[in-house]
């Protein structure tokens, strides 16, 4: 293993490299990643999406339903989404199951939350809860795609790709959209894919779900060659390009390729620094639970997300999940296992909120804690777990101009279905785009003769959750 090339070495090569060589080369405006001024007044500049893959139970975490305590164990009729999809039958008999965690009011805002996420509870006054979410897809495959791309099945660009398409990146030397530890399952690469948008808006994966965090890096950032060989070949390539451009004056495509090496070189020199957590103070590491057993992995990932955002990445997703067909939070049986996942994520999430706030970043960063669907308030097959519930669930958003310490909408008495001020996932997508200064109806891309958008033909901006 060779030492990475020093940043200085790269800078001497890429600072005024090909761009200067290619007389009349690409201007900055021609770089599609250049930051664009949002068309609407923006409250937020970037998003960190914390994806709780598999589906956190809202009735065990943030959606307090005393009826579940009262009617625990009773058989009652419910409209179960899976039963309806499979057989069309409504009102099947199910056994009500009370939450396994104790609820209490927290913070000045008095938001209800269970003790599943005790550390995050200290930050409820920063959070804006949406209790009336509903979405498409009863199974993970369709619902996960819907969460990321606004469609259960068809090939559509991911949310992050749309955002970078709309706003560009604040740092041209870093990818604009990064997905940390993405899952191979339930849509895999399509969940951070650009689909028909230009390739430049493709999400960059960093490691993979279940993989060691220390392996998480951007592909092809390191070479097996010695530093000397790398540099001499890079210099030779630069000279070859100069000659090729002499023979093909004004060839914009050649210039673009030559420029891509300059960008690549800068990426290679910048990215390792951004991903290097060793520069963080002990206090910060501790805040995220880094080097503590259950929280080390997710803590490092959340910290990387902060570092990327700070450096100008527009959209960072951190997945807590795995590549199986029944990912992490998917407790069809053994609901107490939610506790294990909560332990692994609670402190890092709380740490991220605290850290962003103390750095003044939370103001213009949306932190979105979300999942593909919630879970049923009754036991699946009368067993020890809960099935999927796309009809009503809770996510929270923080920062980025969302009302802090606020709760919006409600499910019914049991938490089975959203009933009051319902918010479709399309609506939440639309609202987040709005906070970024993008009109979800105008952020379109023409493909196959039609204008496409993240929210398809739906979506309303939810005014009540904006401060």
């Amino acid at each position, binding site marked *: 293993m060779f030492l990475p090339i020093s940043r200085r070495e790269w800078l001497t090569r890429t600072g005024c490299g090909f761009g200067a060589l290619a007389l009349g080369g690409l201007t900055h405006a021609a770089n599609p990643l250049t930051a664009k001024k949002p068309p609407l007044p923006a409250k937020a500049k970037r998003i960190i999406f914390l994806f709780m893959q598999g589906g956190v139970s809202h009735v065990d975490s943030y959606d307090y339903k005393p009826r579940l305590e009262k009617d625990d164990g009773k*058989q009652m009729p419910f409209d179960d989404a899976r039963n309806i999809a499979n057989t069309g039958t409504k009102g099947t*008999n199910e*056994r009500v199951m009370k939450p396994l965690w104790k609820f209490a009011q927290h913070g000045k805002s008095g938001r209800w939350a269970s003790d599943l996420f005790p550390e995050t509870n200290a930050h409820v006054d920063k959070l804006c809860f949406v209790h009336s979410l509903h979405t498409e897809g009863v*199974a*993970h*495959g369709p619902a996960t*795609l819907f969460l990321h791309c606004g469609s*259960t*099945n068809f*090939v559509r660009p991911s949310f992050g790709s749309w955002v970078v398409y709309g706003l560009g990146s604040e740092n041209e030397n870093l990818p604009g959209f990064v997905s940390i530890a993405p899952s*191979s*399952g339930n*849509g*895999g690469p*399509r969940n951070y894919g650009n689909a*028909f948008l230009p*390739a430049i808006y493709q999400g960059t994966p960093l490691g*993979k779900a279940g993989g060691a965090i220390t392996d998480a890096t*951007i*592909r*092809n950032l390191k*070479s*097996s060659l010695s530093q000397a060989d*790398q540099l*001499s*070949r890079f210099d*030779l*390539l630069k*000279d*070859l390009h*100069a*000659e090729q451009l002499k*023979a093909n004056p004004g*060839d914009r*495509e*050649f210039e673009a*390729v*030559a*420029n891509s*090496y300059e*960008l*690549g070189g800068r*990426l*290679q020199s910048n990215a390792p620094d951004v991903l290097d957590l060793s520069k963080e103070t002990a206090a910060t590491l501790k805040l995220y639970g880094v080097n503590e057993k259950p929280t080390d992995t997710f803590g490092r990932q959340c910290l990387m997300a902060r570092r990327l955002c700070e450096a100008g990445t527009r959209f960072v997703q951190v997945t807590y999940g*795995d*590549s*199986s*067909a*029944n990912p992490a939070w998917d407790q*069809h*049986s*053994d609901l107490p296992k939610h506790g294990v996942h909560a332990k692994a994520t609670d402190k890092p999430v709380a740490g991220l909120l605290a850290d962003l706030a103390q750095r003044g970043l939370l103001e213009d960063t949306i932190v979105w804690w979300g999942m593909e669907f919630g879970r049923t308030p009754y036991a699946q*097959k*009368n*067993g*020890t777990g809960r099935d999927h519930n796309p009809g009503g669930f809770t996510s929270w958003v923080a920062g980025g101009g969302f009302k802090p310490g606020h709760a919006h909408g409600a499910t019914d008495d049991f938490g089975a279905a959203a009933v009051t001020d319902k918010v479709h996932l399309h609506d939440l997508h639309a609202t987040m785009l709005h906070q970024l200064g993008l009109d979800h*109806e105008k952020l379109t891309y023409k493909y*196959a*003769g*039609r204008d496409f958008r993240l929210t398809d033909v739906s979506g309303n901006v939810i005014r009540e959750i904006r401060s």
Partner: protein
Amino acid sequence: MLRLASCFVLFFVSCEVVCAADSPQQLEFFESKIRPVLVEHCVRCHSDAAESAKKLKGGLKLDSKAGWQAGGDSGPAVLPGKPGESLLLKSLKYQGDSHMPPEGQLPAVVIADFETWIKAGAADPRIGTAGKKQIGMSVAEGKKFWAYLPVKAPAIPATADKAWATNDLDRFILVKLEAKGLKPSPDADKATLLRRLYFDLIGLPPTPEEVDAFVADKDPKAFETRVDQLLARAEFGERWGRYWLDVARYAESLTLRGFILKEAWRYRDYVIDSFNVDRRFDEFLKEQIAGDLMKAKNTEERRRQIIATAFLAMGNHNLEEQDKKVLRMDIVDEMLDVVSKGLLGQTVTCARCHDHKFDPIPTKDYYALAGIFRNVQATDDANVSVWKDVPLPVEPALEAELKKYETQIAALVAKIATAKSQAAGKPGAKGALAIVDVKGIAIDDSQAKKTGEWRNSSSTGTYIGAGYVHDDAAGKGEKTLTFTAELPATGQYEVRLAYSASASRAANTPVTVFGADGEKTIPVDMRKDPPVEGRYVSLGEYKFEKGGQSFVIVSNEGTKGHVTADAVVFISLDKNEAKKDEPKPKVVEPDALKALQDELKKLQSTGPKRPLALSVVERAKMEEAKIHIRGLVSNQGAVAPRGVLQVATIGEAPAMPKNQSGRLELAEWIASADNPLTSRVFANRAWHWLFGSGLVRTVDNFGTTGEAPSHPELLDHLAVQFIAEGWSVKKLVRTMVLSHTYRQSTGSANPADVENRLFGRANHKRLDAEVIRDSMLSISGSLSDARGGATYPVNLGSDYGYKANDNWRSVYLPVFRNSLPEFFEAFDFADPSVVVGARNTSTVAPQALFMLNNPFPIEQSKLAGGNLLKLSLANDDARITHAYRLTLGRSPTDGERVVVQKYLKNQNSQPEAWAGVFQSLFASAEFRFAK
């Protein structure tokens, strides 16, 4: 009273006839109870204002009486006097699929007001415009649009310059250039031309020797000879077949769980072969849509036709969709998309939810086509539905052998079953058995999570671990047991339930197994003795993932008598796992049974295999589709009899058969010389592939939102010639590359035609990912000459993380949707989930990082450098020349010699130095383009 009167007056002023029957009381009711609600909750999305703001939803307006009378996409919203049949009331009540208003249900008293209002006749004084109107082009207007006009041979134009054209194609090009006062570009030099031709026809660069021979060849037919040689090479089909695979969204796995489509490669090989044998293109299309319904001359042809239908079956479906009615329509939609975009250049699927907003394609046409594909079965439904691999017909001799073999297997399986049931009755199976002695991973009832009260017992004396439990035949529907296993590895397992049997037990205990593919409930009759070893009943074989869900729930719901459970056992069916994890079973199977099982295993591993192909089948019952309003399966309207696109039908529309899906009729309509789209669309595709942009640049969109052809007469000329020459792709390609137009140099952009729409020069063409990779392999001397067949391990379970390391030609690397070869991903390979007629061409930093740091270019450069040093070349200067000729097909300039020499001077190791030269050449811009 006064208020009522004024209202009455108002109403007479504002509307005359429509509302004449409305009484003042009714109107008062409307004004006080209904109108405010409509204003507050409805008109934001359902009004003229909403329509002008492009926010009108469902085509429905509620700001006037005419609006709700005409209704929206679902029909009239209110039927006066009939609240039960009024969609508006249904929506307010949140019944059916439309729930209005969407943000939450209105209070019950408000809904009751609406019911009262409708029952009383729905008085409404408001006048206004109705909702629905024609937005796109009508079919009649559409028939005048260029793409739907019959293909007719145009007159060959006369050009001023009589010498330039070598064939008629050139005359169409030249006449347009002349009209603009432009001249064609001079010819490309011979080396450049040959390199271009090689890339275009076979996707590989010519060797320096081939270039030298061509440059030296003074025969006027030298170029033509090369064209014919290349058309005859097997690599032609590999290059052109790959183009078609882009259109066909060819892939060998599904995104969902990375399922491998094990038989898809046969389709790829079929496509490559079709281009190589120059199969008539009309036949080629027909086979892909309806091969299984066509007549076959012999078994071989029948096999080919079935393999071809994988075209319909390769969609990237979300087979996990729980509503199978939705899944069925999604599959239909996808097939329709591939057929319409790929073959006809039409965006038909826009009409799934509404009449096409731009093109003359009404929703009725969509469902007429959908009706055909609804009669096609592409999957077998299950929690995760399964695509169809159908048996291929084989030659009679093999068929006889297969039949014999299958009979043998069936007989053995029956014998084993008998032997097992005999063994089960033996007293050896009685008594207590310790958990550690159980074969497989056993979870005792004592470890199960219990809901409700379960009693322990050991009274029968036969059990595993510490006794068994029963539900005391009480609290039916309230009790469950959950047996959860921590499995050591992902794989197939057999799941068994041990229970205690007796006559008083439950006859239909629901036992549900939760695995990677979802859940399945098996009723267990606990009155009967357990059939396996006297202890177990097999619940079947399932896939489980390590860390995924692997548990069994025993419920007492709907049962009578005692429900018992003793243990659940997971037995790995994977050979290696079985060996590793299982202690030797104490209960030894009788020798005879073991012998039979061994025999079966042996037979299964050595016997002949029946070949399968990815395909579709006709459904048992043929039916017509109903229009799905707003595309929803739950909202069906009038029947749309099966048929084809009206606007593209010249003459009689084909009649649809009663006993078949209609695919064959559709195929014949598409692959017909009379179809205005098919021949034009393909001729244009071929032009795009050879010239770098189409005559119609939106190659997949010949609708009104597409681009008009730059040379409509030329397109028709080519289409007519294509048909006249028996739909021969090779002849079409030959005509194009032998034109003078093809031989031009790239030159520089003419200000009068910056985009080169007139083809007065050659386009600078970006090379495809495959061409770049194959060129590197061919230059490094490591390109494999292996061709065809499955190119990944036979037992590959999923495509997650798969890395193809072979030096096959790129077309043979498995196209896995979750793990495309990194080279493909970096260099704009076609998205294998959608029709791609024109690939993206991106220039991004990850490509640079790939070329600089990825092991592949580093390795190929090393090999190429090593080979170069083995050649007897006089000096470094000669080596530089050779490296340039290998990679860029030309000699270096003086400037280039200088910079390479300068680099070499600073290098210590020869092999590393030359590896560096090759890596830099591979990485350079020029290597990625054909001039």
